[in-house]
């Protein structure tokens, strides 16, 4: 699990350290550069001083010093100088400086660099190419113009031990490293605290969310103490809570309805059997009781089956096997199961079934058709009429189921698809029509890619189902 706190701390610390390290390195380089420049300036001054002592006469280049030695270099083994003529030949050299080579600064006017000292450590050298002073200009003039350039130029190389310089650089390095390390540790500590404090509202929010149980979904997360950045999160969470609350409430209502719808037939069953068992009865009476109980159990079973189908549909686990189906012949076939019931209620039946192919699941479509016809037969008026109509309509097929004697208000038509909704303000026919049928129809038709609407007008209740026709659909396998 990635911790936001950890990521924030590590991130900020890494960034700070990188900035500190870069700053330290830049500072080090800058100081070193300026120290070297200073060193080099001092060496240049020395080189210029020596070059002022060099003169050229007939015999060649020589250093005009008393005793042939420069006293300031006498006692030092790690500082010295060397003088070379234009051809690179050594003219003069201070004592104990064999490490000053003729190659140093060769070919350039002003060069510098480091050289390794025989006793360890290193030295900084600087070379200066110059034109030496002529001792006798008149003589020179008589012999013709003096040739400037390689032959006439001289080069002095001055060097001084860089041990102390290196020591200063080392101290500087350590100093910067120490400052860097201390600031890093301090920064890490401060960051940890700052981030921790910054994330405190999050911890508090988590505690608030954690305190909301399934019983108090009506509670909302308080937003007054929440930082501005977290306000959208809190608002979305509160929105989510409202939606979850509504869902849970609906679910509870639904469960209560299920309980009610199952309890009443259950009470009927229990009472019927208890009464039958109160004292011995003739076999015929027992047979009648068993038949009544059986019918009630079948009703309960059908309801449980419908509920399970609905639950599967809700969970998206209803299997759909699309086939080419002639809706007209399917409706005609299903109608046969209800013809007797309609006859018993003295209903006038009008069938208008035009063959129309649909790409649908035969079983699921049958469930819908059965429910629609059953509703029409059960809720239509005694001695009224029922109409079943299948009409192809371009790319769709329309199924209409109508019945006379509707007592449903036009404004209630959308409610008929609600679960456990019944036309009666209270309820009719407990145990027979649970008020789940049309809800199942809508869910199923939606899954089959169609639509279903109900209307009630002038005492006529109509359910209109629209399914896509087979024409123009390629995903169908005709068995």
């Amino acid at each position: 699990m990635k911790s936001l706190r950890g990521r924030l701390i590590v991130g900020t610390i890494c960034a700070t350290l990188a900035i500190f390290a870069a700053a330290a390195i830049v500072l080090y380089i800058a100081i070193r550069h300026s120290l070297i420049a200073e060193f080099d300036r001092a060496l240049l001054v020395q080189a210029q001083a020596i070059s002022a002592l060099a003169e050229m006469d007939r015999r060649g280049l020589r250093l005009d010093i008393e005793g042939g030695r420069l006293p300031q270099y006498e006692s030092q083994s790690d500082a010295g100088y060397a003088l070379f003529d234009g051809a690179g030949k050594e003219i003069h050299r201070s004592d104990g400086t064999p490490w000053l080579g003729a190659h140093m600064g060769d070919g350039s006017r002003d060069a510098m660099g480091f050289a390794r000292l025989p006793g360890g450590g290193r030295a900084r050298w600087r070379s200066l190419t110059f034109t030496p002073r002529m001792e006798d200009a008149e003589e020179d003039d008589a012999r013709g113009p003096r040739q400037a350039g390689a032959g006439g130029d001289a080069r002095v190389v001055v060097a001084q031990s860089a041990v102390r310089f290196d020591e200063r650089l080392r101290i500087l390095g350590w100093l910067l490293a120490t400052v860097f390390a201390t600031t890093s540790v301090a920064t890490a500590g401060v960051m940890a605290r700052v981030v921790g404090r910054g994330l405190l509202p999050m911890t508090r929010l988590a505690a608030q969310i954690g305190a909301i149980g399934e019983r108090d979904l009506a509670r909302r997360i308080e937003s007054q103490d929440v930082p501005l950045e977290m306000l959208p999160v809190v608002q979305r969470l509160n929105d989510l809570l409202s939606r979850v609350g509504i869902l849970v409430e609906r679910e509870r209502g639904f469960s209560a309805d299920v309980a009610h719808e199952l309890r009443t037939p259950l009470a009927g069953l229990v009472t019927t059997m208890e009464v039958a068992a109160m004292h011995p009865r003739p076999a015929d009476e027992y047979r009648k009781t068993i038949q009544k109980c059986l019918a009630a159990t079948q009703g309960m079973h059908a309801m449980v089956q419908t509920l399970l189908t609905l639950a599967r549909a809700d969970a998206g686990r209803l299997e759909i096997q699309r086939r080419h189906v002639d809706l007209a012949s399917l409706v005609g076939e299903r109608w046969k199961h209800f013809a007797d019931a309609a006859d018993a209620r003295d209903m006038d039946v009008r069938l208008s079934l035009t063959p129309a192919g649909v790409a649908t699941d035969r079983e699921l479509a049958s469930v819908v058709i059965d429910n629609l016809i059953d509703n029409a037969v059960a809720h239509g008026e005694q001695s009224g009429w029922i109409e079943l109509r299948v009409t192809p309509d371009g790319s769709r097929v329309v199924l209409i189921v109508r019945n006379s004697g509707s007592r449903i208000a036009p404004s209630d038509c959308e409610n008929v698809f609600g679960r456990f909704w019944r036309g009666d303000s209270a309820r009719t026919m407990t145990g027979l029509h649970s008020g789940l049928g049309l809800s199942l129809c809508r869910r199923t038709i939606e899954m089959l890619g169609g639509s279903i609407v109900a209307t009630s007008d002038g005492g006529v209740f109509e359910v209109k189902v629209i399914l896509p026709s087979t024409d123009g659909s390629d995903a169908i396998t005709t068995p």
Partner: protein
Amino acid sequence: MRVLVIEDYELLRESLREGLREAGYAADVAADGKTGLWMATGAEYDVIILDVMLPEIDGITLLKKLREAKSDASVLILTARDATEDRILGLDAGADDYLVKPFAFAELLARVRAMVRRGYRSKNPVIEIEDLCIDTTSRTVRRADVPVELTAREFALLEYLAMRSGAVVSRTEIWEHLYELHCDAGSNVVDVYIGHLRRKLEKPGQSRLIHTRRGQGYMLGVDEVSIR
């Protein structure tokens, strides 16, 4: 005792009717709220068993209308919802008791008996009048410690008279509390059953228990008039 069952679920309604009849009650039934209310206000019922969810008029509304019409029948509510609010709603609307579906029929009978007793201001299920002892739970009768065999109808008549012992009860009242709505028998059958009861309860040598008040009706218990 006369009971009205208002329940829309046929299986339950008919079973209750049959069970109550077999338990010695005169039981009428209604399948919807409208018929139920009409029947409840039109006759004297000792107990009304009322389902909450009914077509036409729901149980709670029916109960309120019944109480508005000054009916003091004891009402037992049958509800499929066992949430506390639902029970409070029913009791506050004027119900005397409630049962949550599904229930045991024996419990329903016990509650009906208790409601009948309360209706007649009697708390003891065993009624004793002189040397007559009526056990309303086991439905047995003894006089001077000798068991008396009674038919269901005879017992119902005796129980009703015993509940109202000391008071004169008219034939119409007896008939109304003992016979169902669609009964063809006239109120003169009451006289016939009184005769049966007397034969079984008042053996030779025993004192009179059921007294006739000419033009008024019958009375069970000590007859102050004849003592005087």
